[in-house]
């Protein structure tokens, strides 16, 4: 991703779509990007595709 600082800014494209994940530790549901998604709530990598 590329963003601009200041507040940061990017124009987000429909080309970037995450997969749905659920954290096995805290139950948080989120859309993740990258090879090894990390829970945004508890920072655990113990996640699985939902």
């Amino acid at each position, binding site marked *: *991703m*590329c*963003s*601009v*600082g*200041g*507040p*940061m*800014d*990017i*124009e*987000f*494209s*429909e*080309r*970037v*779509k*995450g997969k749905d994940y659920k954290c096995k530790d805290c139950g948080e549901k*989120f*859309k*993740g*990007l*990258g*090879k*090894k*998604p*990390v*829970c*945004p709530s508890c*920072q655990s*990598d113990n996640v699985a595709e939902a």
Partner: protein
Amino acid sequence: MIHSFNGKFLLIRQGAAFLLVAGAGHRFSLCIESPSGECCQGIEPDDLLVVSAPEGGEPEAAVMLIELLRRFHTPLLVLPKDHPGSRRLRYVVSAGPVIRADCSIRRGTHPEQHLICASAGLTGISLCGVPGGCEIRDLPTGAIAEEYGAAGPEPER
């Protein structure tokens, strides 16, 4: 060329433009908040965080941006297309295992994680995260790569 961070940032300059590079240092979730929703990118310890200032600026501001991501896990806020505030923003951030600088892309319009907007003089340079540092490929003639400042306490892995 392999550059070891050794607790410092890597500053690549040509003219007024620069790239400031640091290792992520630990695994964390980088959230991108857009009008259409939220996406969270998994960042690995050896991934790179890069700030580009295509028209120049203050490296200290770039340091602060990197630390907002790396130490405080600040989410990225996405402005809608053609938002008037975009023209006031001088620093561009990119994160991932491999990042290539390119001046032919419109600032803020490319979501691809491996690209970052840069000046014409820094276009073509590729940065690849390696343990403790980064590999610099295709450093343009006249560009200078040097250590910059102290990167602060390394976040726990």
